[in-house]
């Protein structure tokens, strides 16, 4: 069984494109975040920040650009975490028994689901970037075509690594749980702190000490650092704060995501090996 994961991937993508309403709403939702929350907040923040001086020659970006990176991360988080639901449905009413009783290695199931999850996140990330630019976010502003290509690849690499971690986590939880309601509860519980204890919508420097430390080690923050680095640049001002990333910072963030994903893979692998579905 060399290509078992491709079979799982093929089937997952059939389902992704089959549910047209789900497909469209999953693509529309982040766009709506940008369009409403983004434009509303940026008109306020940008007015407030108008009085805050930015040093001569520094590059300042509006709030929409700043939080656009956060929206890409948020969408990736939601999509990845909730993609485990298909496993639960398969387990209770679907193909899981067929798959588990087949000669396909169980790791291939995890890998196949991970690949389809990453594909979905890529599609969403690209749509948000395009839509963001259309409504005025300064993604890749002033980049040469080569820099744009490099920037997009960088963003996608970060998105992929982050998505993998949460896909594995989601798969591990789903295979261990009995009811979709329970899973929904756990996922909702997880998304809240992960999303808000990050630098998605605001800088974390002014957080209380404990929260600031949690936020700094939050994979979400690492992802957003990567996205901002590749989509905005290594040195910019936003919300009156100077953002400066060295290559080492970014490598460290990426490394953090790799470690996070590896741990989550181990967790999923362990849960799947023990999974008994009869």
């Amino acid at each position, binding site marked *: 069984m060399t290509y078992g994961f491709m*079979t799982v991937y093929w089937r997952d993508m059939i389902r992704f494109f089959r549910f047209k309403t789900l497909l469209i709403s999953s693509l529309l939702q982040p766009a709506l975040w940008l369009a409403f929350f983004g434009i509303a907040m940026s008109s306020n923040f940008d007015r407030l920040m108008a009085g805050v001086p930015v040093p001569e020659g520094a590059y300042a970006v509006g709030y929409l650009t700043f939080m656009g990176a956060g929206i890409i991360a948020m969408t990736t988080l939601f999509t990845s975490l909730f993609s485990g639901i298909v496993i639960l449905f398969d387990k209770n009413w679907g193909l899981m*028994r067929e798959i588990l009783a087949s*000669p396909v290695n169980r790791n291939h199931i995890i890998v196949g689901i991970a690949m389809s999850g990453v594909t979905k996140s890529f599609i969403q990330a690209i749509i948000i970037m395009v839509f963001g630019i259309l409504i005025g976010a300064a993604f890749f502003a002033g980049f040469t075509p080569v820099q744009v290509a490099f920037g997009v690849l960088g963003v996608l690499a970060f998105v992929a690594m982050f998505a993998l971690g949460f896909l594995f986590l989601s798969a591990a939880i789903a295979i261990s749980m009995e009811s979709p309601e329970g899973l929904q509860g756990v996922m909702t519980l997880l998304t809240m702190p992960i999303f808000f204890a990050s630098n998605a919508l605001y800088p974390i420097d002014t957080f209380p000490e404990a929260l600031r430390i949690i936020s700094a080690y939050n994979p979400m923050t690492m992802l957003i650092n990567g996205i901002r680095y590749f989509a905005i640049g290594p040195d910019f001002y936003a919300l009156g704060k100077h953002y400066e990333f060295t290559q080492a910072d970014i490598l460290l963030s990426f490394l953090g995501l790799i470690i996070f994903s590896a741990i989550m893979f181990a967790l999923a692998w362990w849960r799947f090996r023990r999974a*008994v579905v009869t």
Partner: protein
Amino acid sequence: MEGPGPGNDGAIIRVENLEHSYGNFKAVDGISFTVKKGEIFSFLGPNGAGKSTAINILITLLSLQKGKATIAGYDVTTESQNVRESIGIVFQDITLDRDMTVWELLEFHGRLYDMPVKERRERIEELLKLVELEAKRDELSKRLSGGMKRRLEIARGLMTRPKVLFLDEPTIGLDPQTRMRMWEYIKGVNREGTTIFLTTHYMDEADQLSDRISIIDHGKIIIAGTPEELKNTLGRDLIYLDTDNNENATKLLEQMPSVREITTKGNRIVLMVHEDGTKVLPGIIDTLRKAGIGISTINLKKPSMDDVFVFYTGRELRDEGQAPARPMFLRAGK
């Protein structure tokens, strides 16, 4: 792939002293049996008897706790990969993705088992024809009727040309007509050479389909044999009686030497007799007349699987949702 194949005695499934517990509850309690190549073998027993647990061990979904089991010569524990490649499975519950089409579900299965493209496409066409779902090829599985879903699952189970096809309660929840059609499909598949291992709690199903039956209850095989053998073990006729005073009639008939056992089923008396029932009937009628008991109906029949089951387990097959069966026997002879 060519496996070691069946042993010298033609056994394709061999199970020895299989045991399986969930906590303190022994679901399978030391069963042994063999299934011969090419036959339809069935486990007949009530829900909760341990049939599904046994089948799940054989198809490698549950790990074997105690005992030994081989399929097509492969050990289910140490050679589970080979076992998986040798078998087809139709699960007890419908195991289809509601949002995939008939063709996609078969294609998915062929891919899972690493069948080459050309072979799996040809096989899909063959099987769609076999189970008469050609017209439904592009239909989502959620739009199929219960019988069609089952046929699709049987087709799927046959995709890889398995040596053994496992059918766990294949006709559960189907209407009588559809069930009979399913039996035809199952017989057809068997005629083509596939060994079939079936579990069921329907007496008629076991009786109609099986070459050999094992009656299983409380995790143990109670008796095994061909349907004929099982029925012949009762070795006598059954007489069903309906009188205007069943209580007195029972007391009277108990004393007749030719009556072996007497039971009541609903509001009818069931007599199990030693000899040819037609010779016993006049005596019974005489006895009841003399006592002034009126007979409204009288019926003589050969024992059915139903009777066999009741005889050996001491109760009727309980159905889902029903209370445990009440004790049915008034053992006259003991």
